């Protein structure tokens, strides 16, 4: 956990005071609705369908139990007893009162948290791999670099009003668990032949209305240049990104319009002026940030715990959970555990205040008082002794957080959707629930194997449907809710095979009631076509293309369409 120093704390406190004053001026009629809107967005405050929505930053997804208890307390005191963990490793409250928000921010500041820049056209929360620091395939501990970037991107005077929101993701491991090709900037840590650390810089990826896979504009940026190079990218974007149309204002549009080659030249030209300037990072600063992180003091354990292995043999239900929800750890005898927030019937990512407190208890007892939020909207205990896994499982079961479905079709990523969000065209949570109910046989789910199913209630794609192996998108047709299905999306090279990709729409959209049937048909095609258990759904889509899936879903109608297409082409 990064520990604020006096200056970090002071800046967050000053922000609370600033927002308290802005809220006071707004309520006194001294700030217009429009002006206040821009200012409150910079503090994570939206006005939603039923009430304001407050988005609190969980920098790079890392939380202490003290902080989690504070989040629970906020849910209880100022909201309706729960919060929603989002796909950006943040937490959202759907029912706070505007007048209370300054007090909520003050409560957050008391545990070194904030809602700074969680919305609005500015830098957003920096995200990373939820297994940072514990993964066996680690190249660097990305938390340190994320914190350096958090400080650099907080209240940056020049980049206070960007053309549009700006999202940066950092991946410090071999496998890409941070979806770096789908962010405005993605940074992949790499080491050169001498072990020296640098970053592969990817720019212009993103989802939303115009999903695009990012482009590598620099293969190896030595780490001291990280901030000056990002500053150059941001300056080019700030000056030349479109501001006339919010749908064309993200950096991906600028990169595409200029071509990645020209954009790269622009950045290099700008960087020539900034390179080696005062913002060049120093080893001392990296060491300082690193030293302000408290670290779990792992015990020296001989290796795999024998009793744990015996339990895996003896208890199939425990073994099933361990197979899906327990992950390998770089320290012998330890493991990381995913606590699932995807229980059927509960909106994905929702947690009650009582659950948060209970998870805090678990993290204190079994995982050094820390936990992480994953962009798949689950909670992670990253440092659990193997010998404690059984006890954690029992506790997680009693909390309803032991659904053994991580990486499976029922581990659905979904935005809050039309039940809560004023932007959404359609509801997403009942769709998730209907799919989870259809696939309620665990044996069947395990047979299907790894599959990401993502649902967004509108084109803003907060549910990341573009990168779902199966994506579901809510659309509006004449005031009715319909759903478009895409397949073949992928968040990144989580393992060798399929790189980051944007899914392709299979055809006309469906009513909500049809969705479980459609998904089932897609799965049938996959099971028939796969060569073996190792070949995932996404791999089959890549190998066969969309056609077999379309045929099964649309049947004769689809054949008719194809024939019409051919005769039109011939005409």
């Amino acid at each position: 956990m990064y520990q604020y120093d006096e200056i970090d704390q002071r800046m967050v406190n000053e922000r609370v005071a600033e927002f308290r004053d802005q809220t006071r001026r707004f309520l006194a009629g001294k700030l217009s609705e429009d002006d206040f809107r821009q200012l409150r967005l910079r503090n994570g405050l939206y006005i939603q369908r039923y009430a304001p929505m407050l988005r609190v930053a969980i920098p790079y997804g890392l939380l202490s139990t003290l902080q989690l208890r504070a989040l629970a307390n906020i849910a209880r005191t100022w909201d309706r007893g729960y919060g929603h963990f989002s796909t950006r490793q943040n937490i959202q409250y759907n029912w706070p009162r505007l007048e209370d928000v300054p007090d909520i921010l003050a409560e957050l500041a008391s545990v070194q948290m904030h809602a700074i820049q969680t919305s609005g056209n500015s830098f957003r929360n920096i995200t990373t791999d939820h297994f940072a620091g514990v993964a066996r395939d680690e190249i660097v501990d990305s938390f340190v670099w994320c914190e350096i970037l958090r400080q650099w991107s907080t209240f940056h005077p020049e980049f206070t009003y960007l053309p549009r929101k700006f999202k940066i993701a950092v991946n410090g491991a071999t496998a890409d668990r941070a979806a770096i090709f789908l962010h405005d900037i993605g940074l992949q840590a790499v080491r050169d032949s001498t072990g020296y650390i640098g970053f592969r810089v990817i720019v212009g990826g993103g989802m939303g209305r115009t999903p695009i896979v990012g482009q590598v504009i620099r293969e190896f940026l030595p780490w001291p240049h990280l901030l000056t190079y990002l500053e150059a990218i941001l300056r080019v974007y700030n000056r030349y990104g479109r501001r006339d149309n919010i749908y064309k204002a993200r950096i991906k549009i600028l990169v595409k319009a200029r071509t990645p080659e020209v954009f790269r030249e622009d950045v290099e030209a700008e960087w020539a002026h900034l390179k080696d300037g005062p913002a060049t990072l120093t080893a001392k600063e990296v060491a300082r940030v690193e030293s302000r992180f408290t670290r779990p003091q792992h015990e020296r354990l001989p290796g795999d715990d024998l009793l744990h292995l015996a339990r895996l043999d003896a208890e199939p239900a425990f073994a099933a959970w361990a197979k899906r929800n327990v992950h390998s750890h770089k320290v012998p005898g330890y493991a990381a555990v995913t606590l699932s927030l995807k229980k059927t019937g509960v909106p994905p990512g929702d947690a009650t205040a009582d659950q948060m407190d209970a998870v805090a208890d678990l993290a204190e007892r079994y995982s050094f008082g820390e936990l992480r939020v994953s962009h798949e909207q689950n909670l992670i205990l990253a440092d659990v002794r193997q010998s404690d896994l059984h006890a954690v499982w029992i506790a997680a079961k009693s909390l309803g957080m032991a659904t053994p479905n991580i990486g499976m079709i029922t581990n659905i990523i979904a935005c809050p959707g039309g039940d809560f969000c004023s932007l959404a065209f359609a509801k997403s949570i009942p769709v998730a629930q209907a799919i989870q109910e259809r696939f309620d046989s665990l044996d069947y789910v395990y047979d299907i194997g790894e599959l990401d199913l993502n649902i967004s209630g509108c084109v803003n794609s907060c549910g990341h449907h573009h990168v779902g192996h199966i994506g579901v998108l809510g659309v509006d047709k004449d005031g009715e809710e319909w759903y478009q299905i895409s397949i073949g999306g992928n968040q990144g090279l989580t393992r060798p095979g399929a790189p980051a990709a944007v899914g392709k729409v299979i055809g006309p959209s469906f009513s909500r009631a049809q969705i479980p049937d459609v998904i089932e048909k897609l799965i049938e095609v996959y099971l028939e076509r796969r060569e073996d258990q190792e070949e995932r759904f996404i791999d089959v889509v890549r190998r066969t293309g969309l056609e077999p899936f379309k045929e099964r879903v649309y049947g004769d109608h689809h054949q008719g369409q194809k024939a019409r297409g051919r005769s039109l082409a011939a005409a």
Partner: protein
Amino acid sequence: MATIIKDKKLAADPWLRLDAGADGAAPVIPAQGDVIVPLAVWQAEREALLARIGGRIGIRVNGDEEPSSFADDLRHFGVVAVYFKTFTDGRGFSLGRLLRERYGYRGELRAIGDIFRDQLHFLAGCGFDAFELREGESALEALAGFRVFSETYQASTERPVPLFRRRHSASADGVERPKNA
């Protein structure tokens, strides 16, 4: 004379701002007094304005102007006034830093247009030292905008050395403390 904010204090504005007429016609330039003219007027009347002896010259530019289009003339200007059509148009912030840091402009850099107290801290970080607030804003109350934040993490025009370099020089444990503490 109108009241503006200059160097974080209230000040009387000696400059007369001459904008193009509603029909786009060039403004009439008085023989005496300090005047701010649109960049296009400067470019069209450069020789005449240089020959003028009755007062100083400043220019008004939009935030998206390329600084290279007037950088060679910066030594002639007493003011560069950057116009913000809306305060959320961040291009003027980059323009400010470029003028100060790349082109070495030392004269008055003024933010005009949709400007009020909640932007002052950030604009100051980008090299702006003068502010002409939008209609209806109290310049006196707006001065509070400079006191909201006591630090910035980044290198900026106001603080060319980023906090992380100052933290180390300030103390051994990386925590900056005031000298008299």
